[in-house]
C-alpha cells in the first residue's frame, strides 16, 4: 500500500515560503540537516556518542558533521552510556549545549540514573539556579528485524519522570524542525527517533523556522469526523494507513500525531474527541502503564459526556520485545488498528 505522508504544517502560515528551499529528505537526513543548522547557529553545541564521528552514527544521522565541525564538537565517546549523559551534565553546567546519541533504545538503561536522578532533577534541586539544556537522541521502536534490545519503546519511563521532556518526530519535516527546537530548549529532552521511519522520505522545507509548531504541540495530520486516532513516532504511518482504509469503508478517522509524550497536548485530543466521541490510541510500547493509559484516563475525565465508547488502546504486549521473526505479530499493524476502530464504533 502506498501512503502519502501529509505535511504536518499544512494548516500553518506559509507566507514566508518564498524564502524556503524544499528538499526531498529521509527522516535520518532531515534530522542530520536540522543538527547541521543547530550546530551552525549555536557554537556551544557538541554532539557526543558512540560512533557519531568518523562513522556518522550507525544510522548515519550525524553523517558529515565531523568533517564540518571537527572533533572538538563531534565527539566519539567511550562506550559508556552513563558516561555520555553524566559528562553531558558537566558540560551543560559549563555552558555547553550537549546533544547525546544513545545508539539504540535498549542501551539507554545503563544511563538511567544519570537521566532520571541527575539530569531531570538538577534544575529543581538547585532552586532553578542550574539549567541543563541536554538533548538525548535515541533511535527507538521496532519493525526493522533487529536483534534483541534494538527495537524497544522506552518513552513511558522518561515521560514518568518530572523534569524531562519527551518528543518524537514522525515525519522528515518534523525531524528537521524539532531537533533544532530541542537544542534551543532549556530543559533536558529525550528526542526519540522512530528508526523504522528513518528511510521514509518527504519534501522538507528548509529554513523558515517560524512556521514550525512549538515543541509539545500535537498536529492533526488527517482530519476526520467519526473517530479520533492518536499516535506518535512510528505508529503515525500505521494510523494513517488504517484511516485511509477506513475511509474507503465510509468511516472518517481523524489522525493526531502527538509529537510529544511529555508534555502531552491533551487540549488537542480533547478538542477532537469532543467532535468525534471516540478515541483509539496507538503506540508500539506496551499498553500497560503506557502513554495510552494516561491519555485514556485524562480524556475520559475531560470528555466523559462526549464519549460514545471507552477509549481503546493498541500497542505492545506485556512481554519482553519478541524476536524479530515474531515482531510483526507484536507491533500494532493496520489490521489491529482497524479492529480497534471497529470495536470503538460498535458501542
Amino acid at each position: 500500500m502506498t501512503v502519502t505522508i501529509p505535511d504536518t504544517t499544512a494548516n500553518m502560515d506559509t507566507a514566508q515560503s518564498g524564502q524556503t528551499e524544499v528538499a526531498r529528505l529521509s527522516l535520518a537526513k532531515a534530522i542530520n540537516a536540522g543538527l547541521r543548522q543547530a550546530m551552525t547557529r549555536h557554537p556551544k553545541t557538541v554532539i557526543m556518542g558512540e560512533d557519531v564521528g568518523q562513522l556518522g552514527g550507525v544510522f548515519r544521522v550525524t553523517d558529515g558533521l565531523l568533517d564540518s565541525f571537527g572533533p572538538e564538537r563531534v565527539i566519539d565517546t567511550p562506550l559508556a552510556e552513563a558516561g555520555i549523559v553524566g559528562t553531558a551534565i558537566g558540560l551543560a553546567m559549563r555552558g555547553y549545549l550537549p546533544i547525546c546519541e544513545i545508539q539504540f533504545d535498549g542501551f539507554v538503561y545503563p544511563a538511567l540514573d544519570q537521566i532520571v536522578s541527575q539530569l531531570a532533577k538538577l534544575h529543581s534541586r538547585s532552586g532553578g539556579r542550574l539549567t541543563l539544556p541536554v538533548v538525548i537522541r535515541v533511535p527507538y521502536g521496532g519493525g526493522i528485524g533487529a536483534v534483541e534490545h534494538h527495537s524497544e519503546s522506552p518513552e513511558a519511563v522518561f515521560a514518568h519522570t518530572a523534569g524531562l521532556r519527551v518528543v518524537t518526530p514522525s515525519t522528515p519535516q518534523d525531524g528537521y524542525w524539532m531537533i533544532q527546537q530541542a537544542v534551543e530548549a532549556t530543559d533536558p529532552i529525550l528526542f526519540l527517533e522512530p528508526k523504522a521511519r528513518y528511510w521514509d522520505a518527504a519534501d522538507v522545507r528548509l529554513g523558515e523556522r517560524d512556521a514550525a509548531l512549538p515543541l509539545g504541540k500535537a498536529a492533526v495530520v488527517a482530519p476526520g469526523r467519526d473517530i479520533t486516532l492518536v499516535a506518535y513516532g512510528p505508529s503515525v504511518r500505521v494510523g494513517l494507513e488504517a484511516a485511509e482504509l477506513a475511509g474507503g469503508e465510509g468511516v472518517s478517522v481523524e489522525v493526531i500525531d502527538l509529537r510529544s509524550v511529555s508534555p502531552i497536548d491533551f487540549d488537542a485530543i480533547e478538542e477532537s474527541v469532543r467532535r468525534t466521541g471516540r478515541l483509539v490510541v496507538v503506540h508500539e510500547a506496551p499498553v500497560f502503564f503506557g502513554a495510552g493509559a494516561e491519555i485514556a484516563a485524562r480524556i475520559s475525565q475531560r470528555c466523559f459526556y462526549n464519549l460514545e465508547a471507552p477509549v481503546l488502546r493498541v500497542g505492545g504486549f506485556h512481554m519482553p520485545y519478541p524476536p524479530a521473526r515474531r515482531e510483526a505479530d507484536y507491533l500494532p499493524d493496520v489490521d489491529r488498528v482497524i479492529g480497534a476502530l471497529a470495536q470503538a464504533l460498535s458501542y
Partner: protein
Amino acid sequence: MVDMGGPQPVRTAGSVDVPETALQFLPPDGQVRSAGPYAPYVESLTADDLRSMYRDMVLTRKFDAEATALQRQGELGLWVPSIGQEAAQVGSAHGLKPQDFAFPGYRDHGVLASRGVDLVQTFAHTRGVDHGGWDPREHNCHLYTLVVGAQTLHATGYAIGVVKDHACATGDPTKDEAVIVYFGDGATSEGDLNEALVFAGVNQAPLVFFCQNNQYAISEPTSRQSRVPLFHRGAGFGIPSVQVDGNDVVACYAVTAAALDAARAGMGPTFIEAFTYRMGAHTTSDDPTRYRDSHDAESWKALDPIARLRLHLTLSDHADQNFFDEVDAEGAALATRAREAVRKLEAPPLDSFFDLAYNEPHPLVAEEHTEWTAFETARLELMGAGR
C-alpha cells in the same frame, strides 16, 4: 605511577594502620618533614596558611557536632558526620584556586567550609526544606550528590569543558582552571566512577579524583570493595595515582595542590587516595557498633587530624593559646548561629516546587498546580468554616 606488581594483601576490617605507601609530611609527632617533589608545596605553606586550615577544620568539626545534636533533637531529619575527615577535606580544598570548581559528595562539610559556602546552608537539605541549599556558581562548589559516584561524571564533563574552553594549559597559572571531585571508598565500586576515570583519562581532563577512604561504606570494610589498595585503581586508566595519609593536612594539601597544578598545566587527571577514618557513624541513622571494633575507633583517636595540626602549630610557634581560644570561640558562635538558623528554615510552599520542575512551562505541571491550588483554597475555607 604506582607499582602494580603481584597480588596485594587484602585489607580486613580492624586493620587500621596507615599504610607505609601513604605519603605523610606531618606525622603524629607534630614535626613537618618533607622531601621529594612535594617539598616546594610543603615549604610554601605559611603560618597564615596553616592557621587558616586549622580554623576551617575546627569550624567544620564544631559545626558537625552541633548538627549531630540538632538531628538528635529533631531539628534535622538526618546528619552525615564528617568528624575525623577534616584534614582530607580541608587540606585538599585549600589547594583550590577561586577559578577552580569542586564537586563534593555528601559528607564534605570541610570542603564547603574551605570554599566559603556557609555551612548553615547545608541544613536546607538535611532539614528537608530544599534539595540543594546553596548557589553552586557563587563559590564554584557544586551541590551535594547522594547517589554515590554520580558526581564524578559531572566533574569529568565540566573538566572536559575546561579543555574545550582552552581554560587550562594557557601558561598563566592565575587563570588556568582545574576541577576536583570528592567521593569515598564505596564509590570506587560504582560504574559511574569507573566511567569517569575512562572519560577523564582519554580526554586528559584537568581533574583530581579525591577518594577519601574512610575504611567503611556504611558497614562494609574496604576489603569488600577492592582486592587492591584503592589508589592502584588509577593506573589501569592511565591516571597517575598517589596515596596520602588522610589525617595529615599538610600532605593532603601538598599532594592535591601539586595534582591541581598539573591539571591546570594541561597534564591531565590524578587519582588521590586519602587514607583516613570515619570517626563517627555513617549517618545519624547508623549504628557502627554493629560492624566496627571499638578498639579501632580508639586507636584512630590518637591520629586525630586536628590535634596533630594543633600540636604542630604549637611546636612551631605558629599559634598560641589566644589563637586557639579565638578559633574555639568562633566555632561556638557558628554552632549558636546554626542552632538559631535551623529553626527558622521553613520549607517553601509546594507552589515553588511545581514551578521548579521545569525551566520552561509544562502544561501538565500547570494543570496539576491549578488543581492543587483549588483544592488547597477549598480546604482552607472549610477549615475556616469549621472554626
